[in-house]
C-alpha cells in the first residue's frame, strides 16, 4: 500500500460519495457544489493516469464554465428546497432495480474479463499527456475533428441564442 494507491482510493471514495450526495441533497445549489467535488476527484484520477492537460481542461471547462452556468440558471429561477418536485416511491424502486441490474451486469463483466484481470496501469510515469505532444497531434492527425467541433460550437451558440431569446 504505497502513496499512489492510497491517493487512488481516497480520490475514488471522494468521487463516489460526492456523486451520491449530488442525487441525495434536496437543494439544487448543494447538488451543483457536490458535482464540482466529483469533477475535482476525477481530475485527480486523470493526473494519476498521466493525462495532465485533460485534468486542467476538465477543471476549467466543467467546474469553471458549465457548473457556473448551472448555478446561474438555478439562481435565476430561484430554485430551492421547497420548489423541488416530490419524489415518487415507485420511481425510486424502478430506478434502483433497472440501474442495479445494469451495475450487476457491468461488474460481473469486468470481473470475468480475463484479458484485463491482474493487469496494472502504470501510474505517475511519462509525459505523454503534456500539452506539447497533444498540440502537435491535434493539429496534424486530429485536425478534421477539431474543425468539425468548431462548427459544432458555432451551431450550438446560434441554437442557444435562438431558443433562449424572448419571442
Amino acid at each position, binding site marked *: 500500500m*504505497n502513496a*499512489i494507491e492510497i491517493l*487512488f482510493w481516497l480520490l*475514488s471514495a471522494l*468521487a*463516489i460519495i460526492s*456523486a451520491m450526495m*449530488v*442525487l441525495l441533497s434536496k437543494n*439544487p445549489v448543494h*447538488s451543483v457544489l457536490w*458535482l464540482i467535488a*466529483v*469533477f475535482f476527484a476525477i481530475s485527480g484520477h486523470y493526473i*494519476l*493516469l*498521466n*493525462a495532465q*492537460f*485533460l485534468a486542467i*481542461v*476538465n477543471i476549467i471547462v*466543467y467546474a469553471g464554465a*458549465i457548473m457556473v*452556468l*448551472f448555478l446561474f*440558471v438555478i439562481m435565476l429561477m430561484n*430554485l430551492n428546497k421547497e420548489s423541488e*418536485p416530490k419524489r415518487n416511491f415507485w420511481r*425510486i424502486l*424502478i*430506478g434502483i432495480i*433497472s*440501474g*442495479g441490474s*445494469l451495475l450487476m451486469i457491468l*461488474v460481473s463483466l*469486468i470481473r470475468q474479463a480475463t484479458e*484485463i*484481470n491482474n*493487469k*496494472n*496501469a*502504470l*501510474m505517475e510515469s*511519462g509525459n*505523454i499527456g503534456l500539452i506539447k*505532444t*497533444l498540440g502537435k*497531434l*491535434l493539429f496534424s492527425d486530429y485536425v478534421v*475533428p477539431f474543425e468539425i*467541433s468548431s462548427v*459544432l*460550437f458555432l451551431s*450550438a451558440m446560434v441554437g*442557444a*441564442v435562438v*431558443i*433562449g431569446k424572448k419571442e
Partner: protein
Amino acid sequence: MNEVPITHILFVSTALFFIGMYGLFTRRNMITMLMAIELILNSVNINFIAFNKYLYPEKLDGIFFSIFIITIAAAEAAVAIAIIINLYRSHHSIDVEDAGELKY
C-alpha cells in the same frame, strides 16, 4: 510499484455510471437530470483514459476522445439550458411531469 489494477479504475467508473443512471431515472428536476448526464459522460471519460494508459501508453487516442467528449458536453449543456429556460418561461416549472404536451 506505483501501480493500480485496471479493474479498480473500471469499478469506479461503473459506480459513477450507475449513480448517474439512477439519477436520470428518479429525479424530476430537469437541471438535476442534466447533472446526472454530466456524471455519465465523466465516467465514460475515465474509461477512455484508463484504457489508453493500459493498452497504448505512448499514444494519445483515448485522451483525444475524452477532449472531444468534453467539447460536445459543453455544447450540449448550453443548448439544454436554453431549452430549460424557455420551458420555465412558458410553464413556470422545471418539473418534467409538467411538460406533458409532448406525450400526446
